């Protein structure tokens, strides 16, 4: 999790700690630097501090001032280069509700597929 590593950093936003822990573990094993946030406010703070974050992976249904869609919108505006992947237990998410270039995973998702989607977006390249 150290910022000094050159591995790409991702931000996982998920209020369910067990799920967050699980996907975080998978991403770390895949070589990503992982930051974790339980809600949108924490996520914004982490983005402000850690400039190396390349991907936002967020759940939609979260308590707090913003849900995942509004967080994605805020990130799209403030950190345009950050790629966005959205996940939700509600399958019925219309394409127009997703931010531009947004990717979507229905819950429960396969961590391996999320990892490969991340790799497609930002690497790291495996030898």
């Amino acid at each position, binding site marked *: 999790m150290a910022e000094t590593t050159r591995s790409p950093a991702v931000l996982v936003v998920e209020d*369910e*700690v*067990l*799920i967050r*822990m*699980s*996907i975080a*573990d*998978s991403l770390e094993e895949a070589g990503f630097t992982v930051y974790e946030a*339980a809600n949108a406010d924490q996520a914004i703070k982490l983005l402000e501090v850690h400039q190396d974050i390349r991907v936002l992976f967020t759940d939609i*249904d979260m308590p707090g001032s913003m849900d995942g869609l509004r967080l994605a919108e805020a990130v799209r505006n403030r950190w345009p280069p950050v790629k966005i992947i959205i996940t939700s*237990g*509600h399958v019925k998410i219309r394409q127009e509700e997703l931010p531009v270039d947004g990717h979507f995973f229905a*819950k*429960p*998702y396969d*961590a391996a597929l999320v990892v490969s989607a991340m790799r497609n977006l930002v690497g790291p390249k495996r030898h």
Partner: protein
Amino acid sequence: MLEVEQRSEGTPANDGSFEPAMADATVRTWLAISGDCVKVLDLDGHLLSLNEGGRLLLEVDEPRQILGKAWPTLWKDAGHEQAVAAVAAARAGERSRFRAAAETFKGTPKFWDVEVAPIAGADGRPARILVVSRDVSQERRNEQRLLEIARRVSENARIETENLRQLLRDAPSIMCVLRGPSHVFELLNEAALQLTGHRDLLGLSAREAFPGPEGEALSAVLDTVYQTGNAFTASDAAVKLQRQPGQAYEEAFLNLVFQAIRDEDGKVSGVFVEGTDITARVQAERALAETEKRLRLAQEVAGIGSLEVDVATGETRGSEQFWRIWGLEPRDSINISVLEGIVVPEDSGVRSSLETRQDGSARPEVEYRIRRPDTGELRWVARHIEFIHDANGKPVQMVGVMQDVTERKQIEEQRVLLTRELEHRMKNTLAMVGAIAAQTLRGDDMEAARGALIDRLAALAAANDILMQRNWSSAPIGAVVEGALKPHLSEERLRIAGPALWVNAKQGLALSLGLHELATNAAKYGALSNACGTVSVEWSKGLAADGTPVFHLEWREQGGPPVTPPSRRGFGSRLIERVLAADFRGCVRIDYAAAGLSCILEAPLGDLPSTGEETTA
């Protein structure tokens, strides 16, 4: 005696009489022009002469046919006798007159007015007899027709009177006539006997017939009508009637009319009383009113309002409840456009419109929202209507019922929310299962991992069971602890203690999973792995250093094999430290003391549901 005969013999006199010469000429002329039948008879009644008028009247072609015949023989029956008597009388010097029927020579029936008088001879005694017969057939016929008319009129009057009497007697209405200032019963019909108790009151005055206070009241009315001549009416007057003689009196209702009877001079001479029995109608009205009241009550209780809409005018009538539903003051009617304005615009396609009412296509059963004008509330109403059509099949009226179904709608909405909530929970649970599985199956020992997965899922299921009992809102800590440690509960060295406190759904699941990890670890390496170790799980309420109330839970192992800290932090310890801490918003500390492992959770008490009822999940 005839004047002319006298004058022919006498001296002229200046008294207006005919001169003899003139008299003779006058008589001849008169005889010639007279329309009467003038005959001269001898004293035995034989016909000596006949004037021209007589010949025509008697329809005699030749005077010879009749001259010399006895005049009375020309008559028959009563006429004959009268003629004989008249001749005899004339012979005796008497004038006579009779009227009788006789046919002419040609058989034409005629009626005659006959005057018979003696004609005096020179000696002054009757010498001849003069008969003047006037044909009065027409007169007679007129008379007889008049008589017939009079007879018929009188007969008709008699029949009419009898009919009226009968009508009066048999009329279903009570009728009686009272005469004079003391109101003497002059006439009573059959129906009136019900009121008098089948007594014959004819000849009695009203006060004599009914001596009590009722009679006095009746007499007072009669007095007023008699004195003023004004009619008096009483509607729905309650009376007692005896329907049949000997029967009990029944309560009955009459519409009464008292009317003055006037004599030819217009003076009041009596009072006509008529009473219509409206008991059946009143009873029907009462029964109907009762039924309506019951229906209305039922509707009120069910909160149902009824409505009627005139399709052409849009005039809408409704029951009290109807106005209440619409949040309007009770009134007779309102134009439907006002109600249409109360329906929210989004539902204007659901309610009826002028067009759908006029062509009868308005949907019979609909639900729509209204914004009540009195409270501003948004309410759901359901209304059911049917159309009434005219003879041409055109809708003329819309009738139906209406009900406020807001509460039912809210329940429906809650059910939809609940279903969504359930779906969400299920997704969440599956996600947790996925996470647990992913973490558990990470190692190489698949056999061990499979067992561990099943145990972890069992711990999750146990917490789930407890939460489901309380609609996923909260769970008692004791039950969650026991559920998580179920496989070890038979062990006497497991001690569980703490006050009645509640955790929310998330906390319950985390606590269950965390305790399961601790127990599994203890059974493998800790106090539950040998024969004498003990484990205590205790929780309590307390105060933190800064004085805020805290919840404290402690897992403590004793008497187990010496503890060595793990070389690697596995899923179990991470789950305890991170998940438990996060879901209780507190801190968790695992202490691998050599004497025994301990795990302490400390969290703000305020984050625990204060009662078992609150939904804080």
